[in-house]
């Protein structure tokens, strides 16, 4: 266990922050210096995420990092418990899994941005904001402190909105920026209010400490409601999804991919609160059914709205919303049956959590490919595109892989996780599975339409293939999609199952790692 492994959790946040603070300074020395700097920062971050994940998956219990002190971070109480006084990072298998997803998407997005933003103004500030967004997402996923979670939530909100409105010459991007910022702020305030209530009631801010103290009191229930509303809003679950298509649709293409990771980090916060913070107190069955209801609504609304879009970015944005529904469905089924029939609840959890990784890879791929498509055809309107397959062979192939994976066609990765969800939700109630499968088929129809409109047909104008700098990140994601689809068992055993059990049955471990006993 060397020093780098010990400090990996905090360095995962500190290194991108350092990069973000220094990027505008380094940018004074020219674009290539900046690209080399940002590239090495993000590569180092990715390596750290891998290192930390390997360590945590091998450890079998949460990794605790005390910020600002080595000796004794807690005050013993008369009752034998102790209150942590410092901010703690607590990384269990679920956090490490999320960090891997974020590292993958951030690497691809940043790499792609180098070419994508080459001809545009404000590149220094753009890359600074992208690194800030990445650092904030890592912070949300690794922290073990409620208020710290809120602070990083706000970092991601503001960085995301700065990026959404970055193309100031597009009037829709400014409208979207205002709208998204207002709703993000509202969701942040809900979370802050809940943190205040919990602090006022229990006198602590650490998640493990709060988890050992929350009961079914009125204040605790109000706090739970506020947290669920706020985080569901930030994750983009229907009926609080109104910001999501604007955000994904108006942001620059590589940013949309990272925004998906941001939504997933909020979803991670939601799961952490349901399973760890309130795991022992709430009536999980009823909550599971509420989650399932919202999941079905999200799937239905997302797919239906995707069906009627003519703008390629908004179409992908709505399909991204529908995928959030699949994750909620998997975890909701797991929550609903956790007491009664745990054997297929665990399968459902595997499906929901595996789908996070798969969704990040294939939605990210689709957004990157759509960026190349829009760049080449000069329009976002599907009716005005056509014939891109003639000249853009690679982009066409990558888009096809992403679309098929998203629609759940075997042998790609979307099928692997969706099959687990279908299987387990069928055993809970066949209707759930039927709705989920129907939505997938509709999604396939949507993408057949897109493919036909944008890539097939006669070549309408002279286009060139996307630059190598944009193709390589797409290739990385496409290879990830294919490998995840070909060897799902390997990944489920190695990384998904530990992550699922960290939520499902790891609550006691999570609390004991901090409070002892």
């Amino acid at each position: 266990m060397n020093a780098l492994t010990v400090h990996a959790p905090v360095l995962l946040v500190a290194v991108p922050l350092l990069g973000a603070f220094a990027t505008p300074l380094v940018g004074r020395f020219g674009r290539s210096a900046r690209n080399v700097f940002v590239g090495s920062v993000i590569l180092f971050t990715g390596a750290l995420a891998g290192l930390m994940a390997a360590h945590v998956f091998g450890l079998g219990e949460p990794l605790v990092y005390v910020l600002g002190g080595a000796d004794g971070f807690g005050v013993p109480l008369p009752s034998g418990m102790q209150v942590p006084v410092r901010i703690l990072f607590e990384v269990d298998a679920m956090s490490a899994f999320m960090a891997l997803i974020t590292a993958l998407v951030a690497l691809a997005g940043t790499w792609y941005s180098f070419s994508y933003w080459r001809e545009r103004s404000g590149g220094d500030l753009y890359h600074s904001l992208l690194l800030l967004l990445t650092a904030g997402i890592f912070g949300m996923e690794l922290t073990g402190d409620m208020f710290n979670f809120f602070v990083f939530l706000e970092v991601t909100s503001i960085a995301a909105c700065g990026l959404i409105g970055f193309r100031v010459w597009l009037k829709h991007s400014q409208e979207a920026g205002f709208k998204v910022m207002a709703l993000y702020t509202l969701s942040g305030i809900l979370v802050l209010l809940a943190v205040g209530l919990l602090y006022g009631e229990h006198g602590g801010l650490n998640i493990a400490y709060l988890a050992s103290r929350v009961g079914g009191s009125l204040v605790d229930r109000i706090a739970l409601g506020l947290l669920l509303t706020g985080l569901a809003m930030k994750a983009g679950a229907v009926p609080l999804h109104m910001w999501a298509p604007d955000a994904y649709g108006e942001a620059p293409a590589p940013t949309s991919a990272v925004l998906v990771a941001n939504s997933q980090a909020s979803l991670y916060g939601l799961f952490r609160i349901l399973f760890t913070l309130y795991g022992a107190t709430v009536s999980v069955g009823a909550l599971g059914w509420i989650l399932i209801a919202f999941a079905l609504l999200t799937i239905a609304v997302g797919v239906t709205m995707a069906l009627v879009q003519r703008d390629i970015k908004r179409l992908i944005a709505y399909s991204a919303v529908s995928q959030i529904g699949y994750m909620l469905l998997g975890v909701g089924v797991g929550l609903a049956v956790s007491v009664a029939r745990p054997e297929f609840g665990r399968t459902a959890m595997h499906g929901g959590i595996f789908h996070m990784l798969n969704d990040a890879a294939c939605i990210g791929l689709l957004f990157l490919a759509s960026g190349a498509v829009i760049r080449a055809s000069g329009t976002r309107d599907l009716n005005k595109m056509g014939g891109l397959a003639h000249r853009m062979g690679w982009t066409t192939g990558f888009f096809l892989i992403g679309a098929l994976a998203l629609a759940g066609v075997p042998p790609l990765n979307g099928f692997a996780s969706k099959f687990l969800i279908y299987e387990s939700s069928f055993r809970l109630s066949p209707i759930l599975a039927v709705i989920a499968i129907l939505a997938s088929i509709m999604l396939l129809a949507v993408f057949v339409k897109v493919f036909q409109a944008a890539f097939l047909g006669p070549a309408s104008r002279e286009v060139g293939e996307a630059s190598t700098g944009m193709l390589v990140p797409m290739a990385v994601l496409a290879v990830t999609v294919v490998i995840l689809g070909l060897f799902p068992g390997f990944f489920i055993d190695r990384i998904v199952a530990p992550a699922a059990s960290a939520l499902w049955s790891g609550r006691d471990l999570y609390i004991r790692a901090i409070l002892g006993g």
Partner: protein
Amino acid sequence: MKRSIVFVAFLFVGAFLLLAASSMRPFGAPPESAMDDYFIDNAQREVAANNVVTAVVFDYRGFDTLGEATVLFTAVVGVLALFRKTREDER
């Protein structure tokens, strides 16, 4: 129609908030203060600072403050990015 639904929802949420606030624990008597008493008792010894709030802000919860500084930095970068000089071919 939509407006009246929002108004009913608003009345509901507002009444709920006021009710929740009035049924909070009594003002001026925190039920659990072990963490804060630790700060008050030990800030001078551990951090060597007379101002306990500053000790909390920059030492015990220093990482929050880094996040807060980051938020401000992000907002400044965002505002500067919005008001930057764009290129002619972009407009």
